[in-house]
C-alpha cells in the first residue's frame, strides 16, 4: 500500500514513516508543507495521504484545505488527517457529503500503533476512521428532547463505534459479543433514530454524523 506523509515536524514525520514501513506500507513521498504535499500526491498517486492539519505556509489549517483539495482532485487517493486537537467543525467539514476513504484522528493515536495501523488500512481501503473524541463529543452534546436518550447504554456504545467507522466485526471484537448481536443492535439503533439502514460502513458513518450534527 502506497503512502504519502505530510507533517512539518521532522521528528514526528520520521517516526510515522518508520512505523508504517515496519508494518509493510510503502512510503512513496514525504512533505513538509501543503504545497509540497499537493505536488507529491499529484506525482505519486498514492493510496493514502496522511496529513497534519497545521502546516506551513500559513501554519493555520493548510493541511485541512489540502486534504479537501486532494479529495476533490484525486478521488483515488484517500486521506487521513491528523491534528493536535480535534474539532467537530473540522470533522463535519471533511466528511461533508461522503465519509468514504476519510480519516480524522488525534495525533496522539499514533502512539497506539496497532489501532493506528488499523485505521490507516481502513481508510486506505475506502473506509472511515473518526477519532473517538470527536464522536464522543458529538454524541455527548446535550440536547433538549434528546432522541439518544432512548438508546440503551450498549446501543450507545455501538453507535459510537459505528460513527468511528468500525465494521460490525470490529465492533463485535471491541465489545466482545457476536457479530449477530451487533447487527441486532444496529437495526434497533437505526429504528429508534428513524434512519434508513446503510449497507456500507462509511455510509453508516455519514448517516450517523448527519444525524448527530442536526
Amino acid at each position: 500500500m502506497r503512502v504519502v506523509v505530510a507533517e512539518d515536524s521532522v521528528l514526528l514525520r520520521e517516526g510515522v514513516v518508520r512505523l508504517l514501513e515496519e508494518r509493510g506500507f510503502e512510503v512513496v513521498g514525504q512533505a513538509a508543507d501543503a504545497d509540497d504535499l499537493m505536488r507529491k500526491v499529484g506525482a505519486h498517486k498514492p493510496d493514502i495521504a496522511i496529513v497534519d492539519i497545521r502546516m506551513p505556509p500559513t501554519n493555520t489549517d493548510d493541511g485541512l484545505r489540502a486534504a479537501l483539495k486532494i479529495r476533490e482532485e484525486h478521488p483515488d487517493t484517500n486521506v487521513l488527517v491528523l491534528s493536535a486537537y480535534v474539532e467537530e467543525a473540522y470533522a463535519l467539514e471533511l466528511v461533508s457529503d461522503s465519509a468514504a476513504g476519510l480519516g480524522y484522528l488525534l495525533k496522539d493515536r499514533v502512539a497506539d500503533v496497532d489501532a493506528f495501523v488499523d485505521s490507516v488500512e481502513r481508510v486506505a481501503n475506502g473506509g472511515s476512521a473518526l477519532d473517538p473524541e470527536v464522536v464522543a463529543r458529538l454524541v455527548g452534546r446535550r440536547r433538549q428532547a434528546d432522541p439518544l436518550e432512548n438508546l440503551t447504554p450498549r446501543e450507545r456504545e455501538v453507535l459510537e463505534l459505528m460513527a468511528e467507522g468500525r465494521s460490525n466485526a470490529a465492533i463485535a471484537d471491541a465489545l466482545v459479543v457476536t457479530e449477530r448481536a451487533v447487527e441486532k443492535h444496529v437495526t434497533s439503533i437505526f429504528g429508534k433514530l428513524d434512519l434508513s439502514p446503510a449497507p456500507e460502513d462509511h455510509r453508516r458513518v455519514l448517516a450517523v454524523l448527519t444525524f448527530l450534527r442536526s
Partner: protein
Amino acid sequence: MIGLRRALWTIGAIGVLTLTAQTTLMAEADFVKDEGLWIALNFLIGGGFLYVGLFAWYRRPDNRVGTLMVITAFAWFVGMFANTEPAGLFSIGILVSNLFVAPAIHLLLAFPSGQLYTREDRILVTLTYVLTSIGFLPIVLTVDTIPHGGFNPPDNVFLIEHNPDFADTYGIFLNTAGVIILGWVAYQLVVCWKEASPPMRRVITPVFIAGALLMGALSVLLILDMFKVSHPSDLWYAALVPFGLVPYLFLGSLVRAQMLRGGAVGELVATIGGTEPPDNLRDALARALNDPSLELAYWIPETATYVDESGRQVDLPRPVEGRAVSEVRHEGRLVAALIHDPLLLDEPELIEAVGAAAALALEKERLDAELRAKVAQLRESRARMLAFGLNERRRLERDLHDGAQQRLVSLALDLRLAQAAVREDPDRAEELLEGANAELAEALEELRELARGIHPAVLSDRGLDPAVEALASRAPLPVEIKARLGERVPEPVELAAYFVVSEALTNIVKYSQAKTATVAVGRDNGSVLVEVTDDGIGGADPNRGTGLRGLADRISALGGRLQVDSPEGKGTTVTARIPCES
C-alpha cells in the same frame, strides 16, 4: 391655584369683618380698662398674624407656616371676645382666652418647615391645644365672676355652681402644667436651634428669640398668678410684645431673603456670564444660594451615575439625611444635581433661577468631570488588565507545573524503572510501560486543553461561529445557538466575543443551576452583539469573580460594554456589545 386664591380672599374678608365687629363691640364695652390699647393690639397682633399668614400661605401653599399663622390669628380673635359686652361672647372669650398660645407654640416648634418632626414636639403641641381649650372649662364652670382687671364684667353663662376652692386648686394644677409645658417648649427650641445648620439659624434666630421671650413672660405670669401675687396689666402687655412681633419678623425675613437672593442671582449671572469662567463654580453658587454647605454632583449619562468635579462617583443623599437634592437641566437634559440645605426647598423659585443661570456653566463643568471620570476609569481598567494578565500567566504557570510537568516527571520515573526491570522482570516492565502510556495520554490531553484555553485554534482558523458551537457542545447542559454571526470579524473582536460566551457558560455551569442556556451572536448597528442567557437562579454579581471583571475590561478596551442582568430567580443574561465596523 385659583381655588386657593379665592379661599384666601374669603378668609381675609372674614378676618376684616371679625376685626371690625370686635372693634365696635370693644369700644362699646364699659367694663374694659385700656379699651383703646386692646383695640390697637387686636389690629397689630391678630391682624398681623392673619395677613402675614395669608401672604405666606399664598406664596408657599405647601408649607404649613402660613396656615398656622392664620389659625393663630383666629384663635387670638376668639379670645378677644373676652373684652366684649354680650354675655355669651364674653363667656366664650374667657373660656378660650389663652387658646392662641397653642397654635403659636405649634408654629414655633414647626418653624420654618411647617412640620413637626419629633414625637416630643407632637405630644407637646397636642397637650397645649387641650390645656388651652377644654383645660379652662372646669374654671368657667365654677367661678361666677372672672376677675378681669376691669369692673362689672358680664355674666358667666357657663357657671354651674360657684366653688372658689375647687377653682383655686384646679387653677394651681393648670398653672403648674402650663409652666412645665412652657419650659419644655423652650427646651425643645434650644435643642432645635443647636442642631440647626448655619443658614437655618440665620432664619430661625429672630423668631425663636421672640418665642423664647413669650415663653418666659407667660411663665412669669402663670407663676405670679399661682401665688396670688397681683400684677399690673402692663406685664401682660409686655408679654404680648414679642408675640406680636412674630409675624412682622417673619415677614421681614421673607422680604429680606427675597431681596438678598434676587441680588445674589444677578451677581451669579454676572460672574458666570463673563468671558472668564469662575474659578470655583461651587463657591459662586453657594454664595447665590446663601448655603455654604452646597455640593455639586455632575450627571454621567453613560453610566447613569453622579460624579464630583474630580470624576469620582458620588451617591446622592437620601432625603432623611438632612440634605436635599435639586436637579439642574440644560435644554431638557439632566446636567447636575445641587445637594443643599433642605431649607432651600422653601424657595423653589430661587433654586430654579440659580439653576437656570448656572446650567451652561454646569454643563461645561460636567463635561470636564465626565472626562476626568473616563480617565480615572481608563486608569483603573488598565491596571486591572495588567493585573488580569499577570494572574493569567501565574495560572498558566501553575497549571503547567502542576499538570503536564508532574506527569512528565512521573513518566520519566516509570521509564527508568521499566528500563531497570526489562531484563529481570519483563512483566513488571510491561506494567510500568503501561502506566507510562496512560500518564502520557493524560499529559497530552491536559496540554491540549491548556492550549485551547489560551487561544482556541478553531477560532482563528474558522471564526466565531464554529468556535462558539464547539463551546456549546462541550457544555454539560443543552445550549441552543439562536443566532450566528455568519461572517469573520477582526480577531480581537472574535476573541473577546468568544471569551464572553466561554466565561458566561462557565459561570452558568458553576453557579446558575440552569437547565438550559441560549447563545446569540449577531450584528447590531456597527457592533457585534453577544448574548448568553440561562434559566437559572439569577442574582449573579458582575463584580464577583475576576472572570467577568477581566472580560469587562477586555471589552471596554475595544470600546464596548459588558452588561450583566441577573434578577433574583429570573435567570441571567450577559450581553456584550463590541464596536466593529462592517
